[in-house]
């Protein structure tokens, strides 16, 4: 139910109520009220690929497959926005970009979902991501054999390096001319952005402690590109970019996908994947415009991210697959990995005004690449921050238990606060998992139950990072330091890839071991998460999957 209806007449073009991508056209994200032509596919004729989800995995794959000549229909539960006309500069309003329907959380450390890890939009959570675009450290693709923890990926890092470059070019990443960590990489397509004061604090702290730092490689333009203007440093990045400077799936891969003949169905919630007696998938049941419908497909790709993907697979159980699809290993839903998102905050004598510019303009990956002196496995990076008022108030209150006059006095110092926040690698654990709850959502589908507990390694990394970030912040001149200990970000791992059907859900090509025409292509397939934001890697995996599908089709192995 949308409450707006109780007060206003529904807007004639309310993208949250009425699908936009219909009648042979889809919204033109670059023009207010604009449209672009869209090829439509019949529900009764099987398309080559039905893709569930249009985020970093599904949107990218839809583009690449359509450009390779396959017929593609991509579904998304969320609206099809035109950022220029639909996005307000307002934290509250822009919560419409998040997946805000209930998911039940338990475990020792129940997760907070929605804001910084789940989107409900065409373009997925890249519509509100912080745009941080980092490559994995090469060893992480073999963390079990090379570093002694987690699980190996069935993909070689050198291959990934090529796909990273493809994604970086598509997103026109702005980044430093030379990157201090890891093997040499090609120059980023765009130059780095000017640092804001919050980023300068990170730089000062790193220099004082003698470690490297860099301007963050980031997917917002530092100079015009196509129809998109450069960033105006408005600082509402995680509430959606109203200028198109942010290079999201919505305004990069999807316009290309449409031009190549893909169809995108917005406000289309896929509730079940249909299978036949031969054990192959035949299409998807989806809810759109008030009714359940069915799209036939020769292949189905699930790309709903690490909660909705296992939820859909589990909700599609049949007599033949009583534990859900692709689940002979019993691993669908398990090994859920978040990333540690703890922070240290402090106060500067100078005005910082971190609400200006993208939140994370500077970072250090030092502890992703340095292994000595660690009492934990894995790595972490940390970045500068720029919380807007509501997030900031909730952080202050949540971490320090402040309210009343004490809180108001702290809030007054908003323009002087500064923080460093980690993105840290959590280890995969089978007990951390997505299952189905008894409660159902508005479509009558069982909602996800998300169980999460940190392991000792996670806690040791947290301690190390908090200590180090505290030193860095202090060295940069901040005072009155305090720690935010309970935040996490990103979701990965609930349908891991591997080279053994007994210990993984999909193979290196993102094809499920159990059902040859069922694929999974999103953060769910990560065997490990590494200490960097995952969006670049998800898109790189999608590009690789598209190439592999093309190769398999070429030799009749699809």
């Amino acid at each position, binding site marked *: 139910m949308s409450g707006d209806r109780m007060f206003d007449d529904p807007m004639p073009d309310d993208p949250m109520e009425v699908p936009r991508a219909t009648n042979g056209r889809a919204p033109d994200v670059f023009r207010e009220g604009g449209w672009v032509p869209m090829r439509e596919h019949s529900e009764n004729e099987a398309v080559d690929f039905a893709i569930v989800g249009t985020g970093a995995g599904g949107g990218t794959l839809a583009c690449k497959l359509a450009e390779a000549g396959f017929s593609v229909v991509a579904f998304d539960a969320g609206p099809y926005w035109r950022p220029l006309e639909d*996005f307000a500069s307002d934290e509250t*309003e822009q919560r419409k970009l998040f997946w805000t329907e209930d998911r039940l*959380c338990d475990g020792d450390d129940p997760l907070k979902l929605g804001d910084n890890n789940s989107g409900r939009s065409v373009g997925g959570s890249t519509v509100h991501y912080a745009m941080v675009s980092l490559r994995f450290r090469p060893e992480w693709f073999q963390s079990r054999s090379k570093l002694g923890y987690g699980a190996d990926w069935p993909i070689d890092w050198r291959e990934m390096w090529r796909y990273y470059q493809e994604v970086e070019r598509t997103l026109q990443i702005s980044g430093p001319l030379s990157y201090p960590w890891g093997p040499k990489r090609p120059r980023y397509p765009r130059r780095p952005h000017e640092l804001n004061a919050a980023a*300068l604090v990170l730089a000062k702290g790193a220099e004082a402690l003698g470690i490297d730092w860099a301007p963050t490689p980031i997917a917002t333009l530092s100079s015009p590109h196509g129809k998109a203007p450069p960033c105006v440093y408005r600082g509402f990045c995680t509430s959606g970019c109203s200028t198109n400077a942010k290079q999201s799936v919505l305004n990069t891969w999807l316009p290309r996908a449409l031009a190549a003949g893909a169809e995108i169905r917005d406000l289309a919630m896929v509730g079940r994947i249909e299978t036949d007696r031969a054990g192959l998938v035949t299409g998807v049941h989806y809810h759109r415009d008030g009714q359940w419908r069915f799209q036939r497909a020769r292949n189905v790709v699930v790309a709903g991210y690490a909660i909705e993907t296992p939820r859909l697979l589990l909700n599609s159980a049949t007599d033949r697959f009583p534990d859900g699809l692709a689940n002979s290993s019993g691993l669908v839903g398990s090994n859920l990995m978040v990333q540690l998102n703890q922070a240290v905050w402090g106060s500067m004598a100078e005005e910082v005004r971190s609400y200006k510019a993208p939140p994370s303009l500077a970072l250090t990956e030092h502890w992703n690449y340095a292994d000595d002196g660690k009492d934990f496995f894995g790595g972490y990076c940390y970045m500068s921050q720029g919380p807007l008022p509501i997030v900031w108030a909730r952080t202050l209150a949540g971490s320090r238990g402040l309210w*009343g006059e004490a809180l108001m*006095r702290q809030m*007054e110092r908003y323009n002087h606060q500064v923080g460093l926040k980690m993105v840290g690698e959590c280890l995969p654990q089978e007990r951390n998992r997505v299952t189905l709850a008894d409660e159902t959502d508005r479509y009558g589908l069982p909602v996800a139950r998300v169980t999460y507990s940190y392991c000792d390694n996670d806690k040791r990394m947290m301690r190390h990072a908090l200590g180090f970030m505290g030193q860095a912040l202090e060295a940069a001149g901040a005072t009155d330091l305090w720690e935010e200990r309970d935040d996490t970000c990103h979701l990965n791992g609930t349908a891991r890839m591997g080279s053994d059907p007994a210990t993984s859900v999909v193979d290196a090509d993102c094809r499920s071991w159990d059902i040859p025409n069922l694929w999974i292509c999103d953060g769910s397939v990560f065997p490990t998460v590494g200490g960097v934001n995952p969006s670049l890697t998800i898109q790189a995996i999608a590009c690789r999957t598209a190439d592999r599908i093309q190769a398999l089709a070429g030799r009749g192995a699809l």
Partner: protein
Amino acid sequence: MPDETMPDNTSGRYPGYDVLAKRNGPSWNDKTRAVIDRRLAIDPEDHRIFDDAAWRTLKAVCDRIVPQPPKRAAPIPVAALLDRRLQEDRRDGHRDVRLPPIAEAWRRGLAALDAECRRAHDRPFHDLGPDQQDALLRAMQEGRLDDPAWEGMPSRLFFASRLLPDILEAYYSHPTAWNEIGFGGPASPRGYVRMGFDRRDPWEASEAKPGREDVAWEENRRVR
């Protein structure tokens, strides 16, 4: 509390700063104007989710969690903003299994708070003095409330996951709160130019430095 610790628009850290002065300038786009206009039009007494008893309790709770300067001409309608949110069923995307859905959690939590009050003081929450109210809220924050009216919902969890964040979200969604903390507010198509330490664009709030409040006032009046 003396007034000077609680700024309103004429004193405090950002004297004379009014983010709404930018409403018709390049910092606001049409969508933002529509959204904020609708928020500002909310009747402070409008409540459809909460019954009158719960409403009185809620308003008293809000006054303690986000106290506002007594001389503020138009206080932020925190309780009405929250009621509106529940009317629109805007959820979080996550819910601790020990909590019921948002509206039910609020109804149950406020009823339980009132029940605790009547048991301890024989009066409803909104009739208590500020110190007694604060003591009860602190007891809730520390999980020391366990009247049967909670129906198994941990009071500490309700405080940390519902009461505090929801009230703060309502309060800091309001332009008056942005004025108070010197936030630039809406920013599209115009964002910001000056990024470094101690740099402000002419369309940002100017902070009052000791002895130079008049300068800040003057600069804030020119914000457009």
